[in-house]
């Protein structure tokens, strides 16, 4: 019987960083405001005091610069955890990530490895308007050479970091900005590391499969409550890893329920939901009793006013509607 305790997502991230810094002296944290400020989302509060300036490094306001420096450190044998404040700012570092981190192993014929972990906040829901509300996980999931993770639960936020650090290749971790205050259960002791390859069935069901990740998981689960009271029993798959995708778990569920609804906070055009839908069509077409449905953000820059931001992003009501649609009920 494992003892469990309840902590916030933020506390889980901080604990994971602390554990990594304690376990391996090659690990260090770098990013804007991670040291003196304690992290833009308070994920590294107190770590500077505990581990010192060499291990907790405040960087200049230059994503391209400090991500490049992190890549350099990794090439030199270190295990940097690079915090990019949000995915919105990672655009400035895309060249470093896509053209250096992702390619150096390949281009060096295996001689070079870049064992970096990049952590970023992502998503909408805090009225930060068009330039600061992107969900661009799908762009990163598109790139061979990196792994992409989306911990949606407190246990995953706690457990994925160490496994990612051990990985000899770049791993990008997306933390949805609305999750930091969420509470969840985590083991009280022992090794809390989790795998970074498999999807998880968060709710087992018979009638339809909801496939989602990150900040959309709790909205999907909320939708299943309402659907259950109408007699529709949904299975919910939390992808956890966005690259590589766990095809096996996805197809096993769709073959069972014959109906799939993908909830993805990105815009539908060229999205992760489009990729998953294509794979379902390829691998489970003859099991489908309805076209795959997708619940995505509206094809507009994310609005600032609260009611418009809500209207533009996936919500439980839309998920309920999509499930009813594939059930034809």
């Amino acid at each position, binding site marked *: 019987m494992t003892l469990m305790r309840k902590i916030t997502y933020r506390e889980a991230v901080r604990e994971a960083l602390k554990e990594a810094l304690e376990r391996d002296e090659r690990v260090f944290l770098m990013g804007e405001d991670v040291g003196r400020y304690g992290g833009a989302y308070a994920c590294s509060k107190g770590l500077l005091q505990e581990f010192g300036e060499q291990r907790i490094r405040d960087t200049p306001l230059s994503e391209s610069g400090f991500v490049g420096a992190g890549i350099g450190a990794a090439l030199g044998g270190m295990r940097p955890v690079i915090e990019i404040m949000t995915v919105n700012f990672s655009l400035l570092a895309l060249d470093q990530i896509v053209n250096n981190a992702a390619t150096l192993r390949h281009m060096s014929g295996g001689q070079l490895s870049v064992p970096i972990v990049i952590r970023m906040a992502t998503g909408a829901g805090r009225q930060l308007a068009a330039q600061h509300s992107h969900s661009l996980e799908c762009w990163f999931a598109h790139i061979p050479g990196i792994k992409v993770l989306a911990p949606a639960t407190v246990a995953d936020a706690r457990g994925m970091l160490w496994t990612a650090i051990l990985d000899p290749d770049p791993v990008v971790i997306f933390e949805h900005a609305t999750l930091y205050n969420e509470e969840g259960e985590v083991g009280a002791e022992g090794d809390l590391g989790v795998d970074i390859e498999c999807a998880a069935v968060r709710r087992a069901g018979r009638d339809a499969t909801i496939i989602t990740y990150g900040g959309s998981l709790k909205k999907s689960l909320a939708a299943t409550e309402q659907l259950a009271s109408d007699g529709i029993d949904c299975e919910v798959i939390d992808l956890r890893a966005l690259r590589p995708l766990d095809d096996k778990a996805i197809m096993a569920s769709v073959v069972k329920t014959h109906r799939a609804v993908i909830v993805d906070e990105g815009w539908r055009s060229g999205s992760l939901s489009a990729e998953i839908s294509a794979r379902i069509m390829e691998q489970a077409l003859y099991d489908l*009793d309805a076209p795959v449905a997708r619940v995505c953000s509206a094809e507009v820059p994310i609005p600032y006013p609260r009611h418009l931001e809500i209207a533009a992003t996936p919500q439980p009501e839309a998920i309920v509607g999509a499930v009813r649609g594939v059930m034809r009920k």
Partner: protein
Amino acid sequence: MIEFRMPSLGADMEAATLVEWVKKPGDRLKRGDVIAVVETQKGAIEIEVFNDGVLDEILTNIGEKVPVGRAIATIRGMDEALGPALRAAVPVAAPEKIAPVTAPPEEAARPPPETRVVQAQITPAARRRAQELGVDLAAVKPGLGGVVGLDQVEAARPVTKERPGILFDEMRNAIAAAMARSHREIPHYYVASTIDVSRLMDWLEAENSRRSVPARLICAVPLMRAAALALKETPELNGHYEEGRFEPAGRVNMGVAVAMRGGGLIAPAILEAEILDMDELMERLRDLVARVRGGRLRSSELSQGTVTFSNLGEETADSVLPLIYPPQVAIIGCGQIAERPWADHGAVVVRRTLTVSVAGDHRVSDGRRAAQFLTHFQQLLHNPEKL
């Protein structure tokens, strides 16, 4: 206006699948009329209504699984005006309201809803299922949105009148469940007697030689007649035990155990057997067996039995110790009629004999009462011309 609810069809049945509506809204109904047919583990069962009236609205679709107690239709009184019908909580009514590929009913200028200008949209899963089931997709009625999906194909599963529609594995499960329950809940006691039935058989042979072939009786008939009459004197062996109480039955609804080819067993009841003479009993038995073989029984036959008669038949075994079928409280079992040495007034003779066993529910009766039944049963069989 009343809601007609799915009746219970036996101790081990919880739900049935609706396969046919025999009456339609607007039809006059008399008590006992068959309103619908459902398919169960025991085959197709005809559901009878309990009231006179007019069928108002159908609440359940063909292909739906209906648990006992679910409202499946509404029936209004003969003189009730056609008011707004009660709607059940199931989303069955919805498909009639939405018709996205056809014209809305208000616009009379558009083509009538039946006209389908789009080709049938069949989902891949439905196509595959139709192939598995041997369902002709062209004949499947599309569902919501003009789509033929898994639900539509499942609903179109062939249930032909010739095929009994009985899944033997499911029947085995139903029998297993009922017998396990019987063994678990009912404290059985057994009393048996071997009876000299020579007089009975002589009488029967004489009777049958006088009758043309179609009018002949099989020997189970006088046995059932005698049993029904004897049961009137021992009411503790005839009725239902439920929720800690025994309810003696005013009538003898005699369940008859009928073996089915392929290994199933079913015991539908001949209602009010105690008032039927032997010719009537024979006719009812013949009809019952035919409908068992054809897989077409009535709900009342399966739920209203008050006792069961199990005749092993010829060339089987000498005696049988059967299990009571809950919620009944007794079962009468007869072995084969066989010649045996018999003591008669000090001399050993050969007689045709029959061993009859009675199993009783010890919560309701005891061996003495069962023995009294057997004595009476025997006496009746010694005077077959009076049966």
